[in-house]
């Protein structure tokens, strides 16, 4: 099966925010785990979090809802949520829901870390 879902966390480098890397399909079955992991970063004192969706193969409204919720929490903590993605198919989901204006979107982790 190619729906293997995986979340990996990389601790923050001295210079940057923590990176939460997601692989596979984010849907109603897997999104709750992502919400937990993103919330945990903010709860641990990181107002800005970087979420790497480069290896995400599918993402639906449930995933967007989780990202919107995380963005809100980051902002309340005085930070932001930086979203990394490049695949047109994934970007399209943000575009058709009008969310490209709300999120800070970067084409690579490096670009997001330097922001």
């Amino acid at each position, binding site marked *: 099966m190619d729906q293997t879902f995986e979340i990996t966390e990389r601790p923050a480098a001295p210079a940057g925010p923590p990176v939460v890397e997601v692989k596979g399909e984010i849907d109603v079955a897997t999104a709750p785990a992502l919400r937990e992991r993103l919330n945990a970063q903010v709860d641990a004192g990181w107002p800005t979090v970087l979420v790497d969706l480069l290896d995400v193969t599918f993402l639906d409204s449930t995933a967007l809802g989780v990202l919107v919720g995380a963005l809100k929490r980051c902002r309340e903590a005085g930070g932001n949520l930086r979203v990394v993605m490049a695949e047109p*198919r994934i970007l399209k989901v943000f575009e058709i*829901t009008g969310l490209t204006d709300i999120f800070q979107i970067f084409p690579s982790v490096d670009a997001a870390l330097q922001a």
Partner: protein
Amino acid sequence: MTDVIDLQIPVSADLLVLARLTAATIAAKAGFNVEEIEDLRLAVDELCLPLVRAARGGRMQLRYVSEGDSIEISCTVQATEALRAVGQDGAPEGRAEGRAEGRAEGATGAEGRGQDGAPEGRAEGHPDDTLSARILDALVDAHGRTDGDGQDRHWLRKHRASLTV
């Protein structure tokens, strides 16, 4: 050529992937191109999600009809009697996220959860339902819902753009 596929699954977060796989398979067979297949895969997910978010337990019936260059998919949730009674007692709404997670853990534990003090009618929407509607608007030719017999039926229709032979 007409192909009809019927799929009936428990309402469960873990099984919605089957609704997507079935959509992708029938679309590939009907000659949809890769982008159209991906669109339909997401569209059927968003078609079902409002029903998944609103229902607790019960069974979801999906019908896929491929005819000529178009595919029509409908999704209906048949709540169990016990669930329907709970859903209609008008008690206050629980936290949306809590409900979603509870359902993910076990669709057939519904009777137990019906007593956890947060029952809800199916008429109120989840905040993500707005996103689902926008995604459907963008990806399919037509979609809608019809209510009747205590059943909430959601449907969509999508044509492939070009003839592939």
